[in-house]
């Protein structure tokens, strides 16, 4: 398996500075269940990568590790040329302001207005006085409207977050990230609540914006055809390991079948699958 992912790696290593570098990274959940183990991954600045794989494969855990909202148990993690867990708390917060995570269900306070929710994206770069003032009177309304406009939501600027649908909330989350303007964009199922046409359109916007800003984009997706359509590089994750890592054009139906294989079989004996933690351990 590790031999499969090496071919693209040398080409990328020639790039001056990778946006993120994982070497032997593993993470075990609090319950003792192994989520990721021995992960090696290198992504160059400006690259756009889709992460696909069956449910529970560890896609979200991987993104949360990259967003520094989880600390890896093993291995080395390097983001934008820095090791987040060796930095001081203040320096880590500054690094985090360069990383934008799009949540599957964006956690926005229900009574907050959309304009405030979008402006909150740039808090990491604002002083406390400016953010306090903006809370009373939104300062950069033009910037927020522009970010929302890219997702066709400019008319929702002064609505409350609880008045929006799930798909609209996801787009507000993307707009907040666009307003944050990070160097590293992480997206966890960013279009899961949208209809297929809107999902494809929104992924197109996300990719164009990432390209325009030369930002690195990593997105986990359930819809394989969307991943193949919009992303040049695909990483297949299964059981906490990287199954393949290659350009989208080289991915054949066999690899996809292997990635998602057994899922039906695993479903059938799911009642005794309560013993999954011990099943996972020998594989690592």
């Amino acid at each position: 398996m590790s031999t499969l992912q090496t071919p693209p790696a040398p080409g990328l290593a020639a790039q001056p500075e990778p946006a993120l570098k994982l070497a032997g990274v593993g993470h075990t959940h609090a319950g003792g269940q192994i989520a990721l183990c021995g992960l090696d991954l290198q992504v160059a600045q400006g690259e756009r990568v889709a992460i696909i794989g069956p449910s529970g494969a560890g896609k979200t855990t991987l993104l949360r590790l990259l967003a520094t909202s989880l600390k890896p148990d093993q291995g080395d993690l390097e983001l934008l040329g820095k090791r987040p867990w060796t930095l001081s708390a203040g320096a880590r917060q500054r690094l985090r302001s360069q990383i934008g995570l799009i949540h599957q269900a964006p956690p926005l306070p229900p009574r907050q207005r959309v304009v405030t929710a979008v402006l909150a994206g740039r808090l990491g770069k604002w002083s406390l006085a400016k953010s306090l003032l903006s809370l009373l009177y939104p300062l950069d309304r033009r910037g927020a409207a522009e970010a929302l406009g890219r997702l066709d939501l400019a008319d929702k600027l002064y609505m409350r977050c609880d008045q929006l649908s799930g798909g609209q909330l996801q787009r507000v989350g993307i707009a907040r990230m666009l307003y944050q303007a990070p160097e590293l964009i992480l997206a966890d199922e960013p279009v899961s609540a949208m209809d297929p046409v809107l999902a494809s359109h929104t992924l197109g916007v996300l990719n164009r914006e990432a390209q325009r800003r030369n930002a690195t984009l990593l997105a986990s997706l359930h819809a394989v055809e969307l991943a193949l359509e919009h992303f040049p590089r695909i990483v297949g994750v299964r059981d906490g390991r990287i199954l393949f890592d290659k350009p989208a054009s080289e991915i054949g139906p066999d690899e996809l079948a292997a990635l998602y294989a057994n899922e039906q079989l695993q479903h059938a004996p799911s009642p005794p699958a309560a013993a999954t933690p011990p099943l996972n351990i020998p594989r690592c």
Partner: protein
Amino acid sequence: MLNPAAARHDPAAAPRLMLTLLAVALLWPGVRLSELDLGVLFDGSNADTMGTFLSAFWPPEHSGEFLGLLWQATLETLAIATAGMTLALAVAIPCALLATRVLSLSALSRGGRPAWWAQALRWPVRGLLIVLRSIPEIVWALLFVRAVGLGPTAGVLAIAITYAGMLGKVYAEIFESVDPLPARALLGAGASRLQAFLYGVLPQATGEMLSYSVYRWECAIRASVVMGFVGAGGLGQQMDLSMRMFAGGEVAAMLLTFLALVLLADLLSRMLRWRFA
């Protein structure tokens, strides 16, 4: 699962019965220890004394001179309660921010559980809040009346100290009861803790904070009246005088004023909640 015998037998029946019996068993000694005897209320001479005291309540005093006095005392009471609450808020909000777990940076990468040292640092603040609110305001009032003399200052200080403890504790709990994910997402995007509080926690907590604060303001009005009896100014001091003079009409007028003040607080609370929640 479909066994009819199992459906007939509620597994929670025995624990619930035990809890009910336990509650009764605990209440009975409480009644005994507090020497509660409702019969005393209807005893001949006691009922007569109360009757004559109450009958003097009608009509409420409404001479111009007294109304002027009442107006002054009401304003003083409102001023004591409001000034005390403002001072209490100034202490309570920083303490609540320090005591709450929501804004912990170390909790961010640990699934919401702060590191042990971060928890340990929160304990002195919690301890301070406990000390502040465990001593009744009337004790503080007695202390400050000795220290700064008769008058509203003692009342303001007593309310500020006790209510800082109560508000701080409840605010910290309100902050912890709201959805922590928005604040955590903001911390994860590089925001400072205060910024994450302002944009992630406060929008969800405003309604509850306002309604609790207004309720506490109402309590402060009542407390300032009680403290008036020990010389801390306001309506309470007036009422103490009127009671000593058996001027039932004046007492009734003051009680009606209380009613109006509590109604006012209730209206204010409803208005604020309607606006912010």
